């Protein structure tokens, strides 16, 4: 059912020569080549796109990573790096002519330094494991993507992952100090340091979020921050989505940067409540969850201010968590939103657009129109604090044409995100999924600049080919189907 056109550019890999070469550099237990062993690697969290690689390498040392990359470079074989495979944009989808380089065995926490407040970990370490290791010192790693139980630091670096607390505590790029990277040619680079800055260009910023296109990370040093003494959540109900959106703006205007600020619409709470029993107001058109953290005095002060703002913004009901158990219950619904929606529909497709917060009501009413247009339902959960919307489009993959409609629905949401002044992806990455929408977000000169950057690190284009940045050719083709107001994009390119 994959709708993907063949990956570009194409490669002609000699399977036997590749296997022979890999057998020379990897012990048998670090190499998979049989189809049944390759099958689990055919997709990541975006299961609609699948491809079988020619081999999966599971190196255990940096030396082996270097060897795999160097040999693939010599043979001209594409390499797709992979962590836990929880990504939602197909960024770790294999290349049919290539190798999957799994960092799953790089799973050691090398150092937790209490005094310097940092941890040095291998890329296959799970996000939550870092916080668990730091907990005895009253510290934690701030970025907390909802997949944090399973997703790995290497994947977080590749995607610049966020989470529900990034408005206050930042994204991966704000919390990583240093990485060790192996280039496709097998050269090792140390980027960043434990000092607050490093000489030269900020390559750390360039590499974080580069979706495995520029290098393979073999070590990550992250910043740890002191765990707040207390956290408390205010839950507010609104009988109008626009009012809830305005309430978010009012909180920010009042000078408050909450630790978390999340919104769910009625279809989302309706899906979640029977499953989680979080105590959500099912009559509300939208609910807001606003978390304050810090010292008990600080939290009390912020909760009082937030409550005042929410009342003034027309909340129909306000509840403040009275215990840690209640706080976790309020959050449980939000955190379980995806699986909860998964219970009421055979399949769902999670989108990841960001928009200026003030355009929320506009976006949600446009989505309501799209639901009718495509004949599919959609529930919306929203990292309201930073404008990151996750519409969950419900469909049934077993029904012919259903996935295609879901995909078109999603594409329209992303196009609208760009039109409203936002972005096609806030935290899930472009991968293969949003490759066409990149043509809407960026014009040919920027895309050409991205290709030049790619060539600086990977001249022959072997790392994760066909992902993250579309070729101008592909955009020309996509542009033919998406003519806005009679303006043909890429007029300088030949049409086909």
């Amino acid at each position: 059912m994959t709708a993907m056109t063949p990956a570009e550019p194409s490669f002609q890999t000699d399977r036997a020569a590749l296997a022979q070469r890999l057998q020379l550099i990897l012990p048998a237990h670090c190499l998979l080549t049989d189809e049944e062993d390759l099958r689990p690697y055919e997709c990541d969290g975006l299961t609609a796109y699948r491809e079988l690689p020619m081999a999966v390498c599971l190196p255990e040392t940096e030396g082996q990573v270097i060897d795999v990359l160097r040999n693939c470079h010599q043979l001209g074989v594409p390499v797709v790096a992979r962590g836990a495979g929880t990504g939602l944009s197909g960024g770790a989808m294999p290349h049919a002519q290539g190798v999957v380089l799994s960092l799953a065995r790089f799973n050691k926490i090398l150092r937790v330094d209490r005094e310097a407040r940092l941890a040095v970990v291998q890329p296959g370490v799970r996000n939550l494991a870092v916080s668990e290791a730091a907990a005895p010192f009253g510290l934690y790693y701030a970025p907390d993507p909802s997949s944090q139980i399973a997703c790995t630091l290497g994947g977080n670096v590749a995607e610049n992952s966020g989470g529900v607390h990034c408005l206050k505590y930042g994204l991966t790029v704000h919390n990583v100090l240093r990485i060790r990277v192996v280039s496709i040619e097998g050269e090792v680079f140390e980027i960043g340091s434990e000092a607050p800055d490093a000489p030269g260009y900020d390559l750390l910023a360039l590499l974080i979020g580069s979706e495995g296109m520029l290098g393979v990370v073999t070590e990550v040093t992250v910043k740890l921050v002191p765990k707040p003494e207390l956290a408390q959540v205010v839950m507010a109900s609104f009988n109008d989505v626009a009012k809830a959106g305005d309430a978010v703006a009012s909180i920010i205007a009042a000078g408050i940067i909450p630790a978390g600020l999340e919104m769910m619409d009625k279809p989302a709470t309706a899906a979640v409540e029977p499953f989680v029993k979080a105590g959500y107001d099912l009559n509300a058109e939208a609910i807001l969850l606003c978390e304050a953290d810090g010292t008990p005095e600080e939290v009390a002060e912020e909760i009082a201010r937030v409550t005042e703002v929410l009342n003034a913004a027309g909340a129909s009901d306000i509840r403040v968590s009275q215990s840690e158990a209640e706080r976790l219950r309020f959050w449980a619904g939000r955190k379980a939103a995806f699986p909860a929606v998964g219970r009421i529909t055979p399949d769902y497709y999670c989108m990841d657009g960001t928009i200026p917060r003030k355009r929320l009501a506009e976006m949600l009413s446009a989505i309501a129109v799209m639901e009718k247009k495509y004949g599919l339902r959609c529930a919306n959960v929203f990292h309201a604090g930073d404008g990151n919307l996750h519409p969950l489009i419900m469909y049934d993959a077993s029904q012919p044409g259903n996935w295609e409609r879901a995909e078109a629905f999603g594409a329209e949401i992303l196009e609208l995100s760009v039109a409203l002044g936002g972005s096609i992806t806030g935290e899930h990455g472009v991968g293969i999924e949003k490759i066409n929408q990149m043509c809407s977000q960026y014009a040919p000169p920027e895309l050409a600049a991205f290709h030049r950057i790619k060539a600086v690190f990977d001249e022959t284009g072997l790392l994760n080919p066909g992902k993250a940045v579309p070729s101008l050719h592909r955009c020309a083709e996509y542009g033919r189907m998406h003519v806005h107001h009679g303006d043909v994009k890429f007029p300088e390119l030949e049409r086909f």
Partner: protein
Amino acid sequence: MQLDDIVSAVRSAHESHTPLRIRGAGSKDFYGGLLAGEVLDVAAHRGIVAYEPTELYLTARCGTPLAEIEAALAEKGQMLAFEPPHFSGATVGGCVAAGLSGPRRQQAGAVRDFVLGVKLVDGSGQVLNFGGQVMKNVAGYDVSRLIAGSLGTLGVIAEVTLKVLPRPVAEQTLVFAMDSGEALQKLNQWGGQPLPVSASFWHEGRLWLRLSGASAAVETASRKLGGTPAVSPDQHWISIREQTHPAFSGDILWRLAVPSTAPCPGLDGLRAIEWGGALRWYAGEQAAVRGAASRLGGHAVLYRAPESLRCLEGAFAPLSPALLALHRRLKKAFDPRGILNSGRLYAEF
């Protein structure tokens, strides 16, 4: 001055292979490699393009003075949280190009942490838009942050969008008497606790500590930490930000960025410690300083010095051959003929 003027100036320099020296207010002419090339004065390309307090961003043209931006932010109770130095009339373009952050960097983050988007004129005169005005955007490589601190070598920053934050409700500055060793130990110890420390400055036996946040949090922390309330704290922190404090005087000043827990290297001339121990200032000629900083896991910038010394030492710590090669290729990807601020970062490109 319009964007088109910058574009045509860069295009003609590109065509004629003429080196350009991009200049805003010239407030950081002392910083980095030697100045060379025909001046491309972009100070007149100025003005705030957009400011949305509830969306937490501000977009301004490169020549906009920081003072103008901060005045607009102050009206809405907001700030540039990285607290950049103004020196003499710094512009926002120069601020991002130099990537220098002020005292609040230890709590809020550096310039690059707040760059959301840039409009760049690259070395062949193309206008490129990277990033945007939203907090989260992972589409495409993060060129906007790469530009921070690149000293104009990758393009002329024509416009920049910065994330802004609310000003803290309360601030208090405490002063402690202690030597540098004890200051480093205390700063690291406090750094591991949930305390609202927003700035620190040690100089000649005294440590200034600024607390910023909710009133209750600042009150509680202040009671817990002790110390003496500072006299005119606001002026004090401005003098640190602007480096008008006597600690920064002298002809030769080294800036060492090191892990906050790094011990004091065996160097004379320690003038000041900032950023919770991670930023250290040394005065005078220092033969061994680059090696010492590198052994501690950091690097040393020859921050202020006579031209002859800057020529000899280079302003920034040398890059490994592999990293240097990468830098050169990146420079070429943005500025194929090497006409933009060449030599300002490293003599090699």
